[in-house]
């Protein structure tokens, strides 16, 4: 085999590869692009394993700042401060953390008219392995409804198409939104 043969082979391999449909782009990258396009460059997270990949991608994206507060309620305060400063911010959290934010959401976000953007992983649903997550998991949508936070369900990667449109509504109407996401929306960990 000559050097020339090797070159030809590699060209052939590349050509074949470009014809075969590759893996879909990561849903996490689509989420970050949509956040960025809608003026959000600060992410605050109390993590969930479902969004471990999103957190890594956020950390590695130089356009974003990522903060880890000790608790969700504290994260809510940080995002409210950012919003008051005119900066777009998102919280990444489990639905269990929603329960820790109820008073602060009412007396800060509602009372002062500060909109909140949440990406919430839905623990305690039919896919849950940890029984203690189930009681709040069953009540999560009703809790969000009660708080007046619009719920947008993200169940499968194609739901990414809805994500950008709903972010636009959040920004235009200055209304709070919770993207309630299933494990099946995110890349497998």
């Amino acid at each position, binding site marked *: 085999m000559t050097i020339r043969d090797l070159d030809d082979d590699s060209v052939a391999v590349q050509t074949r590869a470009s014809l075969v449909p590759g893996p879909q782009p990561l849903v996490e990258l689509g989420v970050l692009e949509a956040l960025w396009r809608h003026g959000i460059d*600060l992410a605050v997270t109390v993590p969930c394993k479902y969004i471990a990949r999103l957190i890594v991608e956020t950390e590695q994206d130089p356009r974003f*700042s990522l*903060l*880890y*507060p*000790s*608790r969700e*309620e*504290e*994260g*809510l*305060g*940080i*995002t*409210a*401060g*950012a*919003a*008051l*400063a*005119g*900066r777009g*911010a998102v919280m990444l959290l489990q639905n269990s953390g929603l329960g820790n934010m109820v*008073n*602060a959401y*009412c*007396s*800060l976000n509602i*009372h*002062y*008219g*500060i909109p909140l953007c949440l990406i919430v992983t839905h623990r305690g649903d039919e896919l849950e392995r940890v029984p203690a997550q189930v009681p709040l998991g069953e009540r999560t949508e009703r809790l969000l409804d009660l708080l007046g936070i619009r719920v947008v369900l993200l169940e499968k990667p194609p739901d990414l198409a809805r994500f950008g449109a709903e972010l636009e509504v959040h920004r235009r109407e200055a209304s709070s939104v919770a993207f309630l996401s299933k494990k099946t929306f995110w890349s497998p960990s």
Partner: protein
Amino acid sequence: MTRPDVIRAVLARITDDVIVVSNIADASFELCRLHDRPRNFYMLGSFGLAPSIGLGLALSRLERVVVLNGDGALLYNLGSLPTDGRYAPPNYLHVVVDNGAHGATGYQPTATSAGTDLVAVARGCGLPAQRVDTPAALGEALDAWLATGGARVIVAVASERPDAPAPVPPYSGREIAERFGRALAGAATA
């Protein structure tokens, strides 16, 4: 030293551009009575979140941010100190008026009245921190921060019961947020 003494010492030194976030109840009421300014953010709820709101502001703005907190509120959101120490924006000052009590609810004793040392906790979170017991010492600490900046905690030991209570600020939450937002709009962001 009383809480109004602490607030007066801060107000005497800061310029108009400085952002002030004040804890729920008396700190907000007294700040509004002493000097109602557009860059004051009066908290009326969300107990404990003053340092968190202040951190979000400090990380998003170039101006200095002063948080006027209390010992009970800081104990309620003690997890804010490691977060402050971790991100430590240089334009951030956290002043804790430590009267050892929950003043707004009838002066029930907090853990600082039994020896919890908030300066030691703050230092353990990587934050430069100092305790001041007199208006003169507080003034020196504030002057030092204004000269050098750097995320910092000042614990001002105050008498348990200050002056007569101040009135509630005559604004709704939305009015406070809108006025505050207008004051910041157009100025430089971080």
